[in-house]
């Protein structure tokens, strides 16, 4: 049995996983584990298969072979509603009618718990209130989604999946389309959820420095293969970054967070070309 690092409890364990499109396998992994109660970040260039892997672990992408265990239950045989009480997923492009209010959206997160035809129970309403509070959206609960800014909207969606009260949360590129300060707001919220409520988080991120700062466990992917995994200080090397992202960089130390800090060096094309002009660099 594969051991989960850093402790022995796995939230998700995939064995002999094969995932792909139209019969062509993209991802082949003999064992892959998501440690429980930690923040795991999937990293890789565009098209490296990290989103596909995340969807496969969430049951949103069919497996060609292999098994995925969510705790003690098999992903493919667990009823959808039961799974929705164990694991929540925020897609890259979530969509809802603009006329829906924030609290109506968050109440959707209670769907896996609600009995058909019964009104929302006190537990449901409490869970919604708590999710709104955790995401700092309580005051905006009666606003319609169309009236929110990008950052508020993302928090509303996060509240929706928090109302699901699952142990596992999966976020597919949650920081895309947010400005820098809202990106850090969201990541700090993610960390708070992890530290205060012990939730297991799996994120796809593009920013390596954010990944180094916030992740307990990193999984690096290239062409559908897991190239490396471990903590940031174990794995962050210029060689690995060159291999995964084809980017020259130097790795220093974050002055406050005490984690690796990546500084990109001049890009390939600029190095190979004439002494670079600003416009050439921009391209």
């Amino acid at each position: 049995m594969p051991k989960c690092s850093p402790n022995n409890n796995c939230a998700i364990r995939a064995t002999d996983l094969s995932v792909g499109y139209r019969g062509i396998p993209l991802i082949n992994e003999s064992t892959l584990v998501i440690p429980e109660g930690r923040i795991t970040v999937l990293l890789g260039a565009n098209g490296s298969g990290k989103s596909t892997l995340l969807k496969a672990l969430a049951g949103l992408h069919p497996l060609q072979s292999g098994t995925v265990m969510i705790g003690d239950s098999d992903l493919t045989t667990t009823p959808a509603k039961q799974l929705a009480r164990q694991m929540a997923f925020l897609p890259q492009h979530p969509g809802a009618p603009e006329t829906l209010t924030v609290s109506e959206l968050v109440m959707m997160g209670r769907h896996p718990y609600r009995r058909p035809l019964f009104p929302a129970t006190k537990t449901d309403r409490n869970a919604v209130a708590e999710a709104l509070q955790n995401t700092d959206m309580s005051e905006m609960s009666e606003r319609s989604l169309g009236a929110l800014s990008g950052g508020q909207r993302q928090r509303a969606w996060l509240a929706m999946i928090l109302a699901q009260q699952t142990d596992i949360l999966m976020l597919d590129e949650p920081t895309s389309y947010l400005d820098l300060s809202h990106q850090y707001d969201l990541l700090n919220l993610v960390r708070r959820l992890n530290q205060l409520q012990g939730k297991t988080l799996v994120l796809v991120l593009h920013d390596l420095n954010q990944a180094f700062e916030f992740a307990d466990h990193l999984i690096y992917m290239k062409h559908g293969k897991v190239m490396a995994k471990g903590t940031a200080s174990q794995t962050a090397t210029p060689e690995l970054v060159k291999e995964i992202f084809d980017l020259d960089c130097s790795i220093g130390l974050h002055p406050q967070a005490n984690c690796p800090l990546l500084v990109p060096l001049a890009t390939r094309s600029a190095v190979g070309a004439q002494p670079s002009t600003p416009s050439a660099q921009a391209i």
Partner: protein
Amino acid sequence: MNKSLTATSYLWFFPPVLVICLINGSIDTIPLLLDENLRELLLRMITELRLPRVLVAALVGSGLGMAGLLLQTLSGNRLADPSIIGVNQGAALAVVAAILLIPELSPHWIPMIGVLGGLASAWMLWALCRGTASIALILMGIGVSSLLSALIGCLLILSETQRLAMVMTWLAGSFATVDQATMVGTLSWSLVLIPASWLLCQQLGPLLLDPLSSRMLGARTGTIESLCLLVACALSAIAVAAAGTLGFIGLLAPHIARRLHPPQPEKLAMPVLVYGALLAMLADLLGRSLFAPVQLPAGLMLAILGVPVFILLLLWQQRVRGH
């Protein structure tokens, strides 16, 4: 929200429209009401002629509205409607073929044949686009619906002229031929299907969200999707069987409801039932009384009056968005 009607106020529209539909028509009922000898005749006329017609119109309208709501929620596309994706045409083709090819056909079989035809075309569509995006469902549906309309056209041209008149009236979408047998058939099917569609809507809330989110909430399972499709098709097929191809209510009723009520399917179900019924009853009422004694089919009235309403709604929506 001030733009949404309070929970039940729209229900108040229903009784007056029902009364007007029952007493108004090609025969003026007011003088008859005053004459004691004729009062009994009037009551018989209302219960035996008008009531079936008005009731069937209400049920057909409600059913088509719900079919539209279910299909739109399922596909995540507000264009989905039983007449656009070919379910109505499938039912119509089956009924037209049956009327033209089996001369001794009893009218009692028509609803059953309609339902089978509608389900067959829906099943074909479902098999074609299983696992594909919603826009594919609409596009293929439009294709299937044109194909089926063409087949209906071929049948009409190739058939004998005798039975053609019967089919033509029916195809235009009219309640004029509704009798008590039709009422019993439509009523019994509706008593099952309309509550079923209402129950389904109570479960469909998360389908408003993107497909990944609704799947992760456990709301988009194969069972629920198939049930929705089955109920929507059966509803539109019994509507076609009772009143011919009466398009547009499936598009219009949910659209009006969305303008006035919150967008969750569980909150739209009741308004859609009422608006669908009102639209069909009013279309029938206007069709039979505007140019009396000439009766215009309700299907034509719906298009003539419904399309401007629909376009105004869309313009209104655009203006609201614009500001």
